[in-house]
């Protein structure tokens, strides 16, 4: 009998054996698939978010300057930009006034951003990211570009003007010049973009300060050098480069976050229980089956092959099932199981439009941590049982 035919027959026997204990095996398969689903879902969703940040933030300001005082960020004087005029290689310094606006009616937190749009890169293309309306002329006062959640809030209130309160509770109203597209929701969903003077007026920010300064550099290779020069020239500031911003997004969705640790620990705990159950020995019924097979003339290697196939089938099917469900969960349902943790108590909930990138390395890692140890835990006790004489094994039953 050829090796292939032998293994096909062994596989037939293994399947029949699995089917005889279908309730137990099915529950093992489902729990195992559930654990893999949890880990793979987390991997896919964090990878998709990191990838989105990586792709989008490639156009972020090259350097952002924030003033620090007593360990907190405070408004940066516009005079600081004049101190930077001596640094060769800086193309321009653009001040931004931005902050958060809490809408008491809806309970939502909006991000209000005021800047001189005509001084920003790609300002001429801003209309491309607007679903409705168009970008107001530079310097035009009283007009706002808003994200979709802000528009929905406005529609619920039933007004066409965006009315906001200053800190002294006096009201200021803006016309809605445009609404951002759904495709940019992951960046603009809660945004209210105003002219910088309007934002100053709304937050009552003095004219000689801004929230932070965006620095644009002519030569990308000089960014670290220029950032260091800025840090030396303005010692009371924090100088954040684009590379650091992108690096932030490579780590914030990592395994070190508490939720990820919970997923990992759950998976590990489940797996330890599995492994312990398997490694602690075979059930009397399984011992009896092995002894009978040996009495019938089966060799130790045949019995090991049965257990190996059993492990491959259960763990392999659980792996494929878990990973497939994880992809469906992230791609079709927007990782809805993780959403409550991802957005927390946020009233605004942007459509994430996640497109999971399937990387072989991710799944290989999950495979190595789940399937291989399971197979080892299946085969080792079978080997220890199959290597003793059949009569003695059967006699003990």
């Amino acid at each position: 009998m050829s090796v292939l035919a032998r293994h096909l027959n062994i596989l037939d026997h293994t399947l029949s054996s699995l089917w005889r204990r279908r309730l137990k095996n099915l529950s093992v398969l489902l729990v195992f698939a559930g654990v893999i689903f949890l880990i793979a879902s987390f991997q896919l969703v964090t990878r998709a978010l990191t990838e989105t940040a990586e792709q989008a933030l490639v156009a972020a300001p090259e350097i952002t300057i924030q003033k620090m005082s007593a360990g907190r960020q405070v408004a940066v004087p516009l005079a600081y930009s004049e101190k930077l005029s001596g640094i060769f290689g800086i193309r321009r310094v653009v001040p931004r006034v931005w902050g958060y606006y809490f809408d008491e009616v809806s309970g939502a937190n909006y991000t209000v951003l005021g800047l001189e749009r005509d001084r920003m890169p790609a300002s001429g293309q801003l209309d491309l990211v607007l679903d409705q309306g168009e970008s107001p002329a530079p310097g035009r006062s009283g007009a706002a570009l808003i994200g979709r959640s802000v528009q929905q809030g406005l529609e619920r209130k039933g007004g066409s003007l965006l009315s906001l309160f200053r800190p002294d509770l006096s009201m200021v109203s803006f016309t809605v010049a445009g609404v951002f597209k759904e495709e940019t929701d992951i960046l603009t969903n809660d945004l209210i973009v105003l002219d910088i003077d309007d934002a100053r007026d709304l937050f009552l920010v003095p004219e000689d300060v801004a929230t932070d300064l965006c620095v644009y550099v002519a030569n990308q290779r000089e960014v670290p050098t220029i950032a260091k020069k800025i840090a030396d020239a303005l010692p009371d500031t924090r100088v954040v480069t684009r590379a650091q911003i992108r690096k932030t997004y490579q780590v914030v969705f990592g395994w070190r976050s508490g939720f990820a640790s919970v997923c990992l620990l759950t998976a590990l705990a489940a797996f330890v229980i599995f492994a312990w159950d398997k490694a602690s020995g075979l059930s009397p019924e399984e011992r009896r089956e092995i002894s009978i097979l040996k009495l019938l003339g089966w060799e130790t290697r045949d019995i090991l092959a049965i257990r190996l196939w059993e492990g491959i089938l259960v763990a392999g099917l659980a792996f494929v099932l878990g990973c497939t469900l994880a992809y469906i969960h992230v791609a079709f349902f927007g990782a809805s199981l993780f959403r409550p943790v991802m957005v927390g108590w946020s009233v605004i909930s942007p459509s994430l439009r996640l497109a999971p990138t399937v990387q072989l390395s991710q799944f290989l890692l999950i495979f190595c941590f789940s399937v291989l140890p399971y197979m080892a835990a299946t085969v080792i006790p079978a080997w220890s049982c199959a290597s003793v004489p059949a009569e003695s094994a059967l006699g003990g039953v």
Partner: protein
Amino acid sequence: MNPAVPKRTVRPLGRLLMVLTCLGLLLLALFVHARIGAARQERENRLRRIAVAALGLTDLCVATEARYTRHPAVTDLVVPFMDHPGAIEHFPTGSFWAPPAAPGFNRGER
């Protein structure tokens, strides 16, 4: 009297192959979906880059409940604990987002 015709039974392996074929077809469909999704994502990324460049954005808008998860790239590490002395971090999103390394020159990273 005709002898009873033996009933043809499908081997367990045959059943397994049927299951594997179904799973394979499902995976193929998902692979095609992933390829289409990647092309769509590339189009959307172009728009996102325009928004980021034109507005000078630094962060993703995933969670809006706390400023340190709305703008983790330009926030202080102390922010989650600065509401009052002895304050503890209490927003749910704080458990999903790992704290970033303190960014910025003048912050020990030179």
